[in-house]
């Protein structure tokens, strides 16, 4: 069931949002759908985390937002990466890779 789906690791949500937004301007609902799709339904992003996250990233200056029409003609808030956001994303990715490598090493050693 949906409730059993894995909770996002604290702090990784920001990175995932930045990564998804990096593909091009996108609105909040689409971001949550995208994360869910790409992770093959592994990650479910609750709205209660998504929107405060988006607002926080915008406040830090990593995201910028613009109101535009969707394909269906509805107005929606589209997020895109700022230059600072792009930089942030790459550092977070490097950090993540290091972290996961380290974790993998430990797990392997423990076997």
């Amino acid at each position, binding site marked *: 069931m949906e409730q059993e789906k894995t909770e996002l690791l604290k702090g990784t949500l920001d990175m995932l949002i930045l990564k998804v937004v990096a593909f091009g301007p996108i*609105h*909040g*609902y689409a971001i*949550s759908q995208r994360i869910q799709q790409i992770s093959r339904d592994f990650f479910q992003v*609750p*709205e*209660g985390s998504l*929107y*405060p*996250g*988006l*607002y*926080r990233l*915008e*406040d830090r*200056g990593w995201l910028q937002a613009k*109101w535009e029409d969707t394909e269906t003609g*509805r*107005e*929606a*808030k589209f997020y895109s990466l700022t230059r600072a956001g792009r930089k942030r994303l790459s550092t977070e990715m490097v950090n993540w890779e290091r972290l996961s490598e380290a974790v993998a090493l430990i797990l392997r050693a423990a076997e």
Partner: protein
Amino acid sequence: MGWLRRLFHKRLVEKRMDAELRFHLEQRVRDYVASGMNREEALRRANLAFGGLEQIKQDCREARTENRVEDFLRDFQYAMRGLAKDRRFALIAVFTLALGIGATTVMFSVIYNVVFDPVPYRDFQRSIVFEMRDLTSTGDKGGRDHYTIPEFLAIREQNHVLEDIVGNYQLDVLYADGKGTRRFLGGYATANGFDFLGVPPILGRFFSPDDGRPGSPLVFMMNYRLWQREFNGDPKILGETFFLNGKPRTLVGIMPQRFNGYGSDLWLPTDLSLGADGTSFPVKDPPVIWALARLKKGVSLQAAASDLDAIMHRLAQANPGELYPQQFKLVTRTLLDFVVGDFKNTLYVLLAAVFLLLLIACSNVGNLLLARATVREREIAVRASIGASRGRLIRQLLVESFVLAAVACVAGCLFAYVGLKGLVAIIPRGPIPEETVIGLNSVVLLFALAIAVLTTLICGLAPALHVARGNLQLSMTGSGKGTGGGLRHGRLRSGLVIAEVALSIMLLTGAGLMMRSFFTLTHLDLGFNPEHMLYAQVAPAADERYDTPVKKKLFFEQVLGRVKALPSVLTATVSLDLPPLGGAGSEITVLDKPQSQHRESMVDLCGEAYFQTLSLRLLRGGVLSETDIDSARHVAVVNQAFARAYFGSENPLGQKIKFNIFDELPETPHNAYFQIIGVVTDFRNRGLLEPPSPEAFLPYTITGFGDRVILARTAVDPKSLLASVQREIWAVDSNAAVTRSGSIKDLLAEEAYVRPQFGLIAIGVFAGIGLALVLIGIFSVMAYNVALQTHEIGVRMALGAQRGNVLKMVLWRGLRLISMGILMGVLTSLGLTRFLASQLSGVSPTDPLTFCAVTTVFLAVGLLASLLPARRAAGINPLVALRYE
């Protein structure tokens, strides 16, 4: 700065947030419907997934800077409203803090300006002076800080530690402008002297490296003060030629007001070759050069001292003689230390005092805040229970203290502005360079602001944490008065009062000790009577009319005759030194006594009326007679210390003594033995605090060397006679200069009393303010406790307690607080006052009388402060008190 824009478009931001979330919801519903769900079910599922819409919105808002700013603004507004409602509290708190901040700012600005930024010179932190300390002489008076020209040149050539060094000496310069001759103080400095200090002239130029060399044009520079005083600040005199010491010199530069390097009226360049420009000295290679040097970067004072010490010891070995004591060492000091010296200690003591005052002010306000917090406990509990986090509550209380501190900071700066004017008026100018400007500047104001923030934390944090830590449930259900919370705060508040009393005791003890010390100092028995005594230092013109002792004697005889003839002059005499400030000393030889013992004595050259003028009593033999003076007989009167030190139980009369220094000087009798003809009582002859040293008084006519002082005992205020004395001196010779004159009493005040007086007044004011604050503190705590206990007291009285019992109970409680504070204060003071020892003379830092007096004052003050609340408690009407709840 998106958040700033959003701050002002709040409605739009809210609407957009709503639209965004709604869009999300609609998309989700659409997707559910698309996947085959019916619309109603889709809506329900979507809403369920969304959770609390309002909660999400709130989380979004909190993620934004502008909302945090807004929270802060709201806290600020809230604090303002709260303070405006409780105006009496706000006023007392602001006033208290302003006093603390103001006093601290005043002291800081004095210290900053005097100790850290006293002179506008380049790299003055690395500027040093050095002195040769005589290790064989007792006390710290032996040695010299002036050098011979060969010494100076050797140091300049051979050192490894100095970046640059300036040599200079001072000589009077005679300026003839056709109308008359005036005497200015001339500073002869090596040509690098001005570049060294790095202050540009306001007009013209510095000396160039060629100035001062033989053959180069004669030039000089002028001090701003002289320029204003003698030439009305006329810029046209630049480039003009002046006749100085009989030679034409061109004025090439005028220095700005804030420059007093080498303390002279005029500056002349010199290449330090003797005899140039008519500068002549009585002996070959006299030690007259004062050196100012700058250390190379990274060289320590000690390293510099040992390097220079080696040079001087080489010189001493190569030229043994009077110039070098048998054992000496070179000591380096920073220029700042040389100028400000011990006065720094006075300032630091005062800074410590002012911090105590600030702490008292903080605990006072902390106490008031606690009282307020107790009353507001229920309000805070309500705020906490509807969701305000602990951090929010603490922040809000801190904002309130900050508002207080900020207002107090502004008021404190105003206080500081006024207080600084008062302090500058009484600050002794002696130890402070003339260039020093004491005032409020940006650094000082920044400091005041930092102090305000610090104060916020000190006095706001404790109550804030205390309140936020409290048991909310208890506060909600309790009445907010009397039980539980009240007691809890009560203990902290009592602690604060005890601390306040202790701090104030420390301040008062310091002030008391300084007061005692000052009293001792001003009531010292000097051994002579300084009242109604006039002095005038006279320098006869330096020409052939006065080139023998006899010619000089004739001049002084005429002057003395005229001064004595003035009405209200009782007696007048000539001397060499100004009592009691000390003077020349010499090693002595006693005829027919072994040379092995090192004997030293001070020497004064006097007229026959000297002993009568100073009111010294004759103990044995006789004093100098008119014939002794007239015929310059080789006789001496010595003081009691002299007789005791060198003759013990022997009879000093008839013994013959020689002053070795006379053999070194050209114009003094060489190899001359003086017969002792009398012994007089001691007086303090080496400063107020030193015990009398051996001293010999010789007829002033034995030599023409040096200037003389006219001392006169008067029947009226000596200052009223100064003009007449000057007139009489000029009537004898208009070219004679009176270099210094006044009353001995004023001289004492200037030289000995000004500094302790300054310290005393400053610390006295701080201690007074501290005491007043503590009075308020005790009063407010006692009154508050009584208010809290109204109910309890009502019950007691209803059950039969007498008014007297209630009065006693409240007084007793106050007394207990005060006694604990006094005990702590006295114990701490006993440990701390030794740091005050440098400021005290004649009083022990643990003087029991002072401690007793302070304790008594405090008990009295404390009782007074508790009496009013106690009487109010005793006046409680049980009926009213019980119904009141």
